[in-house]
């Protein structure tokens, strides 16, 4: 493997890592806070992509990329809150909530995907990104659109980190995630914080959808692959800190890039899942995880 090829593959992996960290962050946030696994996360990504296409693309409303991204994030937050109210909240006090919500979120995902199929049709579309050309730094070379994605995602995650660590609302969200009963005794508004967490996760999924819809062609069924990747990232990395899915996302992105180069696109998911199983066998709480779950 030549150095230039190595650098190119590595760059590709890092860019993928940025995208995966955005996808996995929301999933991990819901898992740690509400204690459930949201199987509709992939559908949220698809829905976000389609909303952004509808708002921003010249063939539709044509309001431009920036407006479409902002509208998508806000719309997905609202959709996430509604989704949580309808499909998760009714089972909140059930002891078997984890299993119940696997079924309800899967059902919700199916409904969303079919609605997208009805509204936008099955033909593939693509979001047009504003930038053009390439950026290069030494041997590292990415397209300007990838650069834009890296910039926006980094800013988003940094803002989110600041929000969770420094603001009262973010700290309250972490408190509820770490000990629900103590949070209730402190007088925190737990139902509101749950809704906000789910909405936030959906908004992040929507933003990820905007980028996936621009990098690849989008179809209503494209959500399965991001959901799988986010699942692998969350399980591989563990959820001990809210930064662990981010490390894992870069690891998965780089491994995916190199395995695509070495064994080809078709075997890459197999490589990732074998790796995930190996990690589960050796360290069930994830590579960067601890035994208890918390943000």
């Amino acid at each position, binding site marked *: 493997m030549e150095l230039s090829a190595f650098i190119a593959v590595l760059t590709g992996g890092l860019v993928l890592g940025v995208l995966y960290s955005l996808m996995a962050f929301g999933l991990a946030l819901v898992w740690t806070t509400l204690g459930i696994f949201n199987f509709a996360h992939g559908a949220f990504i698809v829905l976000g992509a389609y909303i952004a296409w509808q708002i921003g693309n010249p063939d539709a409303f044509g309001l431009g990329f920036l407006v479409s991204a902002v509208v998508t994030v806000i719309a997905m937050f609202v959709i996430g809150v509604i989704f949580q109210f309808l499909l998760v909240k*009714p*089972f*909140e*006090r*059930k002891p078997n909530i984890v299993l119940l919500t696997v079924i309800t979120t899967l059902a919700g995902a199916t409904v969303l995907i079919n609605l997208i199929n009805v509204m936008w049709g099955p033909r593939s579309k693509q979001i047009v990104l504003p930038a053009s050309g390439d950026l290069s730094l030494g041997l590292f070379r990415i397209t300007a659109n990838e650069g834009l994605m890296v910039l926006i995602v980094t800013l988003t995650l940094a803002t989110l980190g600041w929000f969770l*660590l420094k603001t*009262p609302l973010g*700290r*309250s969200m*972490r*408190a509820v995630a*770490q*000990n629900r*009963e*103590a*949070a*209730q*005794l*402190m*007088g*925190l*508004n*737990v139902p509101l914080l749950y809704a906000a967490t789910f909405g936030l996760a959906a908004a992040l999924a929507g933003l990820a959808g905007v980028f996936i819809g621009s990098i690849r062609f989008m179809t209503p069924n494209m959500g399965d692959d991001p959901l799988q990747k986010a699942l692998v990232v969350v399980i591989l990395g563990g959820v*001990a*800190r809210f930064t662990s899915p981010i490390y894992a996302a870069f690891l998965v992105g780089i491994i995916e890039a190199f395995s695509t180069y070495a064994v080809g696109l078709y075997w890459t998911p197999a490589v990732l899942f074998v790796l995930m199983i190996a990690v589960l066998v050796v360290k069930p709480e994830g590579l960067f995880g601890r035994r*208890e779950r*918390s*943000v």
Partner: protein
Amino acid sequence: MTALLEVIGLSGGYEPVQIFKDVNLTVGAGECVGFFGPNGHGKTTLMKTLSGIIDPWAGRIVFEEQDLAAPGERKARRSRNLNYDILVRRRMDPKKVARAGLIHVAQGSTLFPDMTVAEILSIAPGVALAAGRKPEPDAVFSLFPRLKERLQSKSRFLSGGERQMLSMACGLLAVPKLMILDEPTLGLSPKLRQELADAVHAIRRAGTPIILIDQDIEFLRGLVDHLNVFDHGSISRRLTNAQIPDHETLMAELFGRRQG
């Protein structure tokens, strides 16, 4: 004199197991009420019900003449094929209880393991501020100077005693009108026990009404106006401070005198 907290005919537990039944309790303004009783007889469950963590099955909880629990009996689960939880509204809201000023410091709470002491103390006064009460962080720090040294530690690295101090500090920052302390000295070394007991005395001297659960009868004797002996899910006896017997006598009365 109107009562600060009045509990009338309260029953509850974890469905389908009833833990306590028909509890009547009155806490007057400025009073300190003690609870003493064997482990596993429902003291903590009763306190969790008072603070709204679990729903009461029947009875009223009146705090400052405000009904905290929804009126009426809890409906029986008629069909196991229906999702009972969405058909029946929760009867109590812990947020409303905390806003009203009834603050529960839980027994041996781990609080929030991955948050630092400073972070936890920063969100603790939220409920007081929302209800228009003014927290006094300086008074809390002078009561627990050790917390000031541990501000940047995550709470899972705190010792049991420090964690209990943090729990009580959080409770105080919520500016309680009535504070429930559930075994504040549980599982601590004698030196730390003394430190925490002193803190409870200080809170009492500051005039905050307290419901205190403890297993140390001498500690209770020094603090409470009334002592409720709680066993088998109800208050079996109510004693004034002067009537509190020594540990041996009380144990003998609860469990029967040892033969021979």
